[in-house]
């Protein structure tokens, strides 16, 4: 067995969740720079402050709005997620989020739900247009970037942290390189340890961010919280972003189709819930 290399690690809270950065052959200062980047992106991408770049875009009422390169990349990733998932991963979910009462950080408690009038989400390309340095959102719609942003950010962090690093943003993670022992990065997935090497992982669940019968994971086909019989999905794929898209899609597809879908698209998968066979 090769000798274990020293791993520098850094843990912090951001994006409303726990974040961890690991790297071999990097200084702690480099990881702290990663934290600053996460916090800066969090300020840009949150929908809970009125002056964030995302909130300004949501309020733009179909006018083209100037956006920075990071926002542009995340929005393009969201459009790609929509295509990859056949429309199941749709960030044009803001109206449903507000309808179920998710109007502020859940640490502050949910608001009263008002589900009358909630319906299927519009196709994302009808809602969101992106061009170089700008974007616009259709009138009466809005976007919430959610897990798509976290998976995308984990991938970008690993690019910045070097060839042997791991970034975990609230369970959406990317691991590059051979890890501390040359065998890949040991990562817990579905209760067991897997060695990830240039692979990402993500979990999609209706068990967290839940209040009463409602939760945050919206089914775009109904506009309501998903009820598919699968409660939680963890995925290993070629990137954190891809794992996030596959995890959410599998959960929405339900217990009959999800195993086939995962077998076609994922490298490893854990399906949890009472109806999973």
């Amino acid at each position, binding site marked *: 067995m090769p000798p274990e290399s020293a*791993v520098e*690690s850094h843990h912090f809270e951001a994006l*409303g*969740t*726990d974040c*961890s950065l*690991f790297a071999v052959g990097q200084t702690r200062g480099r990881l702290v720079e990663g934290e600053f980047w996460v916090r800066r992106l969090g300020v840009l991408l949150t929908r809970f402050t009125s002056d964030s770049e995302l909130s300004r875009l949501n309020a733009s009422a179909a006018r083209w709005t100037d956006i920075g390169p990071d926002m542009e990349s995340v929005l393009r990733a969201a459009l790609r997620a929509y295509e990859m998932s056949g429309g199941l991963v749709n960030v044009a979910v803001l109206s449903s989020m507000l309808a179920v009462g998710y109007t502020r950080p859940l640490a502050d408690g949910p608001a009263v739900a008002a589900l009358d009038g909630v319906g299927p989400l519009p196709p994302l390309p009808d809602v969101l247009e992106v061009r170089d340095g700008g974007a616009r959102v259709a009138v009466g719609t809005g976007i919430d970037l959610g897990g798509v942003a976290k998976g995308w950010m984990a991938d970008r962090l690993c690019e910045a942290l070097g060839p042997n690093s*791991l970034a*975990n943003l*609230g*369970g*959406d*993670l990317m691991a590059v390189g051979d*890890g*501390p*022992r040359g*065998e*890949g*990065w*040991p*990562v*817990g*997935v*579905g*209760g*067991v*340890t*897997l*060695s*990830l*090497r*240039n*692979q990402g*992982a*993500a*979990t*999609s*669940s209706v*068990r*967290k961010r839940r209040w009463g019968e409602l939760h945050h994971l919206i089914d775009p086909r109904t506009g309501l919280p998903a009820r598919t019989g699968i409660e*939680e999905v*963890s995925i*290993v794929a*070629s990137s954190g972003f891809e*794992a996030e898209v596959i995890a959410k899609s599998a959960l929405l597809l339900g217990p009959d189709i999800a195993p086939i879908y*995962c*077998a*076609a*698209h*994922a*490298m*490893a*998968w*854990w*399906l*949890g*819930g*009472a109806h*999973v*066979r």
Partner: protein
Amino acid sequence: MRLLLIKAVATALTIGATTASAVFVTAHLKNPAAPLQPAVLNTGNGTSTTSMDGTLTVGPSVQPSNAAPITSTYAS
């Protein structure tokens, strides 16, 4: 004699170049776990086990480990 020498040198150069190429390629794999294209990665040949209250399936491009996890994927 000179012709023989030229053939020997050419043979040695060929063998050397082939060996060096093989060593270089194996030492510079960009991603040893890279899947084949297209993006259909598995054909149902993963190993499935019951884990917690669900089923874990691990495809051939992921290796289980006996090491303690340094971190985990989880719902947040």
